[in-house]
């Protein structure tokens, strides 16, 4: 087929590869693909107020499964406050379909939704095709809401295939359609997806005249090979259990590798080992140098720092409960040894922590997550809640409470957890509607005693 196109083009004296596809083919592809492009919308409602977010989605399943870049659902926002998910089918008879959020997939930096209504969904099926420098690629995206979600077509040539924690393909300046757009090769196969990237908007909202995707389009896409496994096994409405090692990994510089006689060997160096986490249980130690995963040498990144990132990404794509064998070198000149690590689920992030908003004080607190105690070097079992939001000009803001403060006591009572905090606060307010509240918080290694006076 491709050969035929080329033959035809040669006859026409233009087989210089000016266009990725002959005009007719391109128009067909544009028509075909736009039926699979949708706008994904949801409402964020909580103490922050109420706001709608809209981004590009691609239908990937005939039963109405839609994929978007993960960045449309920032992990800084609490999951429990994301509501009213919708899939919008663009066109003159624009149609809104209620949808369910299937969840974030941190393995591939994607998020999934599923339409609640049955209808004839046209899906795009991504394929594992090799991407080569100098080949032509095309992509189709949607203009923002203000431009009626009109589909648009873009062409580019592959400039470089990059190795990194997430493999990415760099294309020529013509670029790609906006973030979230599917990318096709000259045979019309769906071979990649445009991820969120610097200076691009994840949102299909705003002034169409200053639309980056048109004036300075994205130039990176992720080859389908990287996310096919996620498409085959997407989240199902619950947060995915992502495995972790529980140890910091860094990429030693060339000089450090040389010091350990590891010149040219892709290596991940173990930094802090988190107590009671899988790596610690397996006997890994700070300073260990990981050189093999399940008997195979580590995959090299373009930069030494990328080698451990690639390893971590591989581990995250494994299953909780799986055992991996890591070959490590301990001291200089010591023989290789093998450790078997039983992968456990990584601790949940702040976005999944339950929250409580005290409207009179203008403050939200949330459950403690692993990162809170880790970063502040508090004992892992330290009880409390963490300040998640302080409303501007509120009583709490005036008193000087800050986001990230680790709350240890409320009115001189040790805080056991979010539930206890909430019931204690509500009870206190019932009996003392206007009384001051005294917080003891940990900030930057020290405690502060902060008195918050509610509006009288």
């Amino acid at each position, binding site marked *: 087929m491709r050969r035929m196109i080329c033959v035809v083009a040669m006859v026409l004296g233009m087989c210089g590869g000016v266009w990725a596809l002959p005009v007719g083919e391109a128009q067909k592809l544009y028509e075909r693909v736009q039926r699979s492009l949708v706008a994904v919308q949801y409402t964020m409602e909580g103490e922050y107020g109420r706001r709608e977010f809209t981004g590009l989605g691609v239908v990937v399943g005939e039963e109405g499964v839609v994929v978007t870049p993960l960045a449309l659902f920032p992990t800084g926002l609490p999951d429990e406050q994301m509501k009213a998910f919708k899939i919008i089918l663009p066109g003159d008879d624009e149609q809104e379909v209620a949808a369910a959020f299937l969840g974030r997939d941190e393995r591939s930096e994607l998020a999934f939704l599923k339409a609640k209504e049955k209808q004839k969904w046209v899906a795009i099926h991504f394929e594992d095709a090799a991407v080569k420098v100098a080949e032509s690629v095309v992509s189709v995206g949607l203009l923002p809401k203000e431009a009626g979600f009109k589909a648009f077509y873009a062409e580019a040539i592959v400039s470089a295939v990059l190795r990194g924690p997430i493999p990415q393909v760099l294309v020529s300046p013509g670029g790609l359609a906006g973030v979230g757009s599917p990318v096709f090769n000259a045979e019309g196969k769906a071979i990649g997806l445009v991820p969120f990237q610097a200076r691009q908007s994840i949102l299909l909202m705003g002034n169409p005249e200053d639309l980056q995707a048109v004036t300075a389009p994205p130039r990176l896409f992720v080859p389908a090979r990287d996310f096919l496994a996620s498409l085959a096994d997407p989240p199902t409405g619950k947060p995915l259990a992502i495995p972790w090692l529980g140890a*910091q990994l*860094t990429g*030693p*510089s060339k*000089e*450090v590798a*040389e*010091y350990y006689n590891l010149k040219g060997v892709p290596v991940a*160096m173990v*930094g*802090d080992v988190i107590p009671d986490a899988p790596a610690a249980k397996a006997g890994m130690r*700070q*300073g260990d140098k990981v050189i093999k995963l399940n008997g195979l040498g580590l995959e090299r990144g373009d930069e030494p720092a990328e080698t451990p990132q690639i390893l971590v990404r591989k581990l995250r794509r494994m299953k909780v409960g799986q055992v991996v064998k890591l070959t490590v070198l301990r001291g200089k000149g010591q023989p290789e040894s093998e450790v078997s690590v039983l992968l456990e689920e990584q601790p949940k992030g702040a976005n999944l922590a339950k929250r409580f908003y005290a409207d009179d004080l203008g403050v939200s607190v949330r459950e403690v997550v692993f990162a809170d105690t*880790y*970063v*502040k*070097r508090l004992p892992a079992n330290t009880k409390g809640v963490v300040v998640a939001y302080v409303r501007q000009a509120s009583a709490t803001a005036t008193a000087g409470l800050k986001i990230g403060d680790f709350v240890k*006591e409320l*009115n*001189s009572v040790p805080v056991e957890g979010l539930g206890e905090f909430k019931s204690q606060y509500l009870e206190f307010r019932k009996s003392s509607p206007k009384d*001051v509240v*005294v917080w*003891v918080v940990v900030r*930057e*290694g*020290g*405690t*502060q*005693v902060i*008195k918050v006076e509610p509006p009288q």
Partner: protein
Amino acid sequence: MNWRMWLWMAVGMGVGGCAKNTAVPPYPAATPEAVTKVTEAVFPAVVRIDVKQETFAEGKRKLLGGIGSGVIIDEQGHVLTNFHVAGRAAEIYVTLDNKERVPGKLVGDDHWTDLAVVQMDMEAVKTKGIAFKHADLGSSKSLLPGQDVMAIGTPFGFARTLTLGVVSNTDRTFYPERYRINQYETGDFANWIQMDTPINPGNSGGPLVDMSGKVVGINTRAAGQSLNFAIPIDIAKEVVAKILATATPGKKGCVERSDLGMELKPLQGFEQFYNIDINRGVLIENLDRGSAADKAGVHPEDILLELNGQATNARFPEEIAGLRKRIGDLAIGSEVTLNLKRGKEVITRTMKTEKLQSSVGEEREFAAWGVTVRDVTRAYANARQLENEKGVVITSVNPGYPAAKANLAPGDVMTRINEQAVDDLEAFAKLYEESAKRKDDAVLVDLVRQRTIQQAVMKISY
């Protein structure tokens, strides 16, 4: 509330022949006669100070030039000035009233009060036959708001500049703000004299003088718009005495203070909540990890009622500095008994005071590696949430030199060199010297960067 710290040059007030025998009202006014008389008396004791201060930047020890003011306080040629003018100075020149210039040397300094004592080279003074006077140090205790005062100094290098104003407040605190001079803590142990007397950069270290010609303060900082601040002379007198008492020809004088490791907070507005009488006790807000009070089992939210049997009441922010000073003035290592209110109970805790430490450790340059480092102190470790106080922290790197080329950066804490533990600056210096002696061409560094642990190799060429 970010006050800009300005260098000020202050003119000393000549005592000689001052109106000692004349009966003056308790708060003499700035009549034209008084102003000229005081000026005449004080000018010969005020000096301009030109310094080269030690600073560490770009991986090197450097000398940074500056101008300030000072006041001669005795016949031995001691000059009182600010720490931020002459502290850590490697080179000092003192210009006297008669425009003659002599070398000076730093006798000692105290960043906590922003004071330093310099001595003029008395040989040079003698050789040149320079006559000088020294100022009379008065008392700041009796100052009253509204009282006329004069500032003398070298604003913007304009030596012997006199300005006039009134005392605006005698008990100014910036609580809860904590100030630093090049990261050195300052201003914790005293409240300030606030005056509208104009002062400008270069006035720093010069005297604030009352209309009887006595020095009542050391002009130190300006916040613009007639908001200027001086260190009370009563505080300065104590600091000078301690510096002079501890200085030896080989060692700079200093002020050593006791520390318990408690942050105190005024109780105003908390009394009802903690069910305590108005004007009783002070709230303990924080305990430095590993400090004497922490180890003795004092908790945040304890209310300190008494220290060694004496009441410790601080209802207002203005009362905090005085309490800090009371703790600072205790003999180092002495036993202290605290009476604390915890909930409904009153409990007692006993501990020994420790020597007050700055969060800024000693700093040195290590030229072959192109790096300047500081000792990690407990206060620094606590503030940065480091695991402990072991190691040295990088303060600057010299571009193009081994540390910079190995991507080491300011803030990195070096914990091991060539797999040997770096406990402190001395240990680091020893490892550096040994490595230099061996002419190591590669040096392995273990470092803590924020919350990560990493390694780097510095490639050295000799």
